[in-house]
């Protein structure tokens, strides 16, 4: 495979600085009646620049809110979010985001949606056609560049969404249950594609899911959260060697032991 050159050098911090650091992060939402609902209840976490970290926890526990805080979309009530050692105020540079639903712009074609990533990521005009072609082929969307999102299946839309994020060349990818709405087979295929891309050129990823097997298959490290407000209850380093073959993993005894351990952590709360 040709070099993907997925992440541009957004400048800034040396590689010894953690890509993301959370220090006693609290986030609360203001309710309509004036009260306040704690979503994140004191989380400290550090993510290395090339690390794949998966956050698991019960639905609605506040994992997504943690990603939003890192992306500068919500403000901490207390504590601090650092990206590249700098305190986050508004969306920081070089951060790609992916939601459970595709959030493609429906009036643009797949190609134009990917262009949005190229344009906002500052890819020079002259390089755009080549990068676009490379991305479409990487995501097996070659024949769909001129299709509108409404004409595609859910899996293809998520691939296009991933394409837009990769086109932006983020140094940090925040993925909020990106494959959660897909059927089991498509989910597996998307996981494989993500690993293929990431193993070719490692970047920091924070990935939220409530699928434990998906978490273990993808991650360097799995962080387990309590029900809302989110607190870290356990942490598992996943030492299964890479590159990983997601389909074969299920028969690996280490895989079984890890998923079992994480289940136990989740059920204990």
């Amino acid at each position: 495979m040709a070099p993907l050159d997925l992440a541009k050098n957004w400048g800034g911090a040396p590689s010894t600085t953690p890509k993301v650091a959370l220090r006693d992060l609290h986030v609360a939402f203001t309710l309509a009646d004036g009260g306040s609902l704690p979503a994140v209840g004191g989380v400290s976490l550090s993510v290395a620049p090339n690390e794949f970290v998966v956050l698991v926890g019960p639905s609605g526990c506040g994992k997504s809110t943690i990603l939003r805080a890192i992306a500068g979309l919500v403000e901490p009530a207390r504590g601090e979010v650092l990206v590249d050692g700098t305190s986050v105020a508004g969306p920081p540079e070089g951060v790609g985001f992916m939601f459970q639903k595709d959030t493609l712009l429906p009036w643009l074609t797949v190609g134009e949606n990917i262009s949005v990533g190229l344009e906002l990521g500052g890819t020079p005009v002259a390089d755009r056609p080549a990068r676009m072609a490379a991305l479409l082929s990487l995501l097996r969307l070659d024949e769909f560049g001129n299709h509108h999102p409404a004409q595609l299946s859910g899996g293809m839309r998520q691939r296009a969404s991933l394409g837009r994020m990769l086109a932006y060349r983020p140094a940090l990818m925040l993925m909020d249950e990106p494959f959660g709405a897909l059927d089991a087979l498509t989910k597996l295929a998307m996981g494989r594609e993500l690993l293929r891309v990431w193993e070719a050129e490692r970047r920091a990823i924070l990935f939220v899911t409530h699928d434990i097997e998906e978490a273990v298959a993808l991650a360097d490290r799995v962080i387990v959260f309590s029900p809302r407000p989110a607190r870290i209850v356990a942490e598992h380093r996943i030492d299964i060697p890479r590159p990983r073959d997601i389909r074969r993993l299920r028969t690996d005894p280490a895989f079984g032991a890890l998923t079992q351990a994480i289940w136990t952590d989740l059920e204990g709360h």
Partner: protein
Amino acid sequence: MSDPAAVIEAAPPRAARLPDSIWSVQAWRVGLIAVLLLAWELAAGRLFDDFWSSRPSEIAERIWQMAMSGELSRHTWATISEAGLGLFFGALIGTPLGIALARGPRVARVVDPVIMGLYGLPRVALAPLFILWFGIGLTAKVMMALSMVLFVFLLNAAEGVRGIDPDMIDLMRTMRAGRWYMLRRVWLPAIVPWLIASARIGVGLSLIGAVVGELIGANRGLGWYVNKSGGQIDTTGAFAGLVVLMVIAVIANQAIILVEGRLLKWRR
């Protein structure tokens, strides 16, 4: 996102026996109009006095005479430019105001009573004032037409912006999209369906504005011609003016449908 154009496009299920082809639909349409005109023609002078109803053949003849004398193009052009300019400037002013209001909810809450008050006002009643302020020339009628369509564009644009998926906006924010980029790639395309729906409603409303202006004070225009004919108890003349107005509205609507088909390909 709720869907303005869908309401317009939603057709009742077609009866099985009616043919599907677009040409057959056209043939049925022409047939229906021909039958209505024929019924009018035959009934006039028999079922009711054609002094009051005129008849299609006489109206057609009058329109032909007007076309020959140059009167038709003079009046038609006057009314079309009044309504067209009103529609254009109404869209041009109403749309950005609508976007701005949807983007600034605090300001929107403050100005809401003012907007709803002006919107609720029967703008036809403004015609005498507009004639006083702007004279009996083009400007007063353009302002009338504009006042009719402005709020349609404003309210629809605001509603369109409010209907955009907030996650889509958040995603663009994480990529640090600037204000103009958002306007070009998100806000404007998102409200195109709403603007088209506004334009469809606006065609009729801007014609009303222009014609009302002509009724109050003018020396040309289809509204003026209808009014003048009525004053002379010339029902044929009045109907001739109405027919031309109707044709303008139908053609403008078809033009919008054409543009809609091109702009909204992504929805199919």
